[in-house]
């Protein structure tokens, strides 16, 4: 098959408006259109299924019918660039942000980002979390200059919506009920051992963890976090970071 035919074949797979490539033959007749339609349908439903399995909470929120229509549109506009389906859908959140029918669900893209971070954490390399004893033996003078090495699975997300609560309720982690306090929520997603953990962050926590993950020194990260939120509690956030296994080593 020539490169031109391959391109035409691939384009026709995800776009029904593109005609069936020239020169195709089918076992049951001279008209390969029907056989090609079966193949086209299998490709789209396979990729739609891959998206649905990566974003189950989003599917619960909008319902199966809406989700599969939205995912099929995504598949059509953003066919995979890699044979590895585990990364397919990394840009699904950005797509839903611009997807007109989903505009009324303002929190949906951030919930999808949270689920994408969970998938990333699931497939990230294994690494043992930092042993708190390593910090305990540091001299106080050294402390301000300590740089933390983030866990390979770590993601920190910030949202103006209560994404952790919404995610937990739609992932079966929390009871479904009205959300009384519609507040912004920041999340940490990390897989210190076998299970992906999702936690809500206290004020300034996201700024603190992001700064540390970028390689800022501890003192600088504390300044950034205090500026972000005056209620930033250093000792609670340090304890949280150590408990969740957000970091693997110090430098």
């Amino acid at each position: 098959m020539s490169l031109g035919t391959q391109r035409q074949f691939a384009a026709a797979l995800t776009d029904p408006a593109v005609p069936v490539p020239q020169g195709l033959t089918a076992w049951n007749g001279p008209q390969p259109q029907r056989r090609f339609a079966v193949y086209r349908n299998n490709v789209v439903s396979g990729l739609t299924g891959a998206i649905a399995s990566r974003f189950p909470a989003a599917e619960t929120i909008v319902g199966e019918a809406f989700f599969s229509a939205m995912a099929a549109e995504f598949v059509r506009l953003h066919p995979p660039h890699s044979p590895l389906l585990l990364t397919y859908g990394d840009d699904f959140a950005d797509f839903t942000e611009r997807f007109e029918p989903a505009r009324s669900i303002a929190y949906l893209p951030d919930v999808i980002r949270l689920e994408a971070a969970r998938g990333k954490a699931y497939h990230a390399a294994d690494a043992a979390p930092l042993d708190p004893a390593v910090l305990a033996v540091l001299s106080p003078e050294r402390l301000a200059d300590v740089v933390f090495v983030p866990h390979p699975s770590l993601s920190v997300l910030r949202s103006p919506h209560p994404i952790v609560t919404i995610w937990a309720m739609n992932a079966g982690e929390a009871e479904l009920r009205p959300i009384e306090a519609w507040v912004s929520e920041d999340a940490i997603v990390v897989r210190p051992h076998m299970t992906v953990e999702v936690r809500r962050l206290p004020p300034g926590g996201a700024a603190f963890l992001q700064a540390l993950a970028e390689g800022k020194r501890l003192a600088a990260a504390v300044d950034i976090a205090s500026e972000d939120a005056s209620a930033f509690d250093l000792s609670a956030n340090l304890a949280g970071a150590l408990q969740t296994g957000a970091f693997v080593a110090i430098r």
Partner: protein
Amino acid sequence: MKNSIATLALAGSLASALATIAAPSAFAAENTEKCYGVAMKGQNDCAAGKHDCAGKSTMDFDKGSFKLVPAGTCTSMKTPEGHGMLMPA
């Protein structure tokens, strides 16, 4: 912050962070906790092993059934059978 003050503040925070590592985290998964021994019969959210689930508890204040309550409020709840517990009994 002056450097010496900053160093002291960091060291102090680290010391208290290390001391609280075993305690419940400030990074919460939930804003509720499972509170055992406070649910009236039929009002439980779920349970550990004794019966199928929500609403199936047959005993008032059953220590094996829990009710989801706002985090941090469980052990301060008083029932005629004693305080709420974070673990089933």
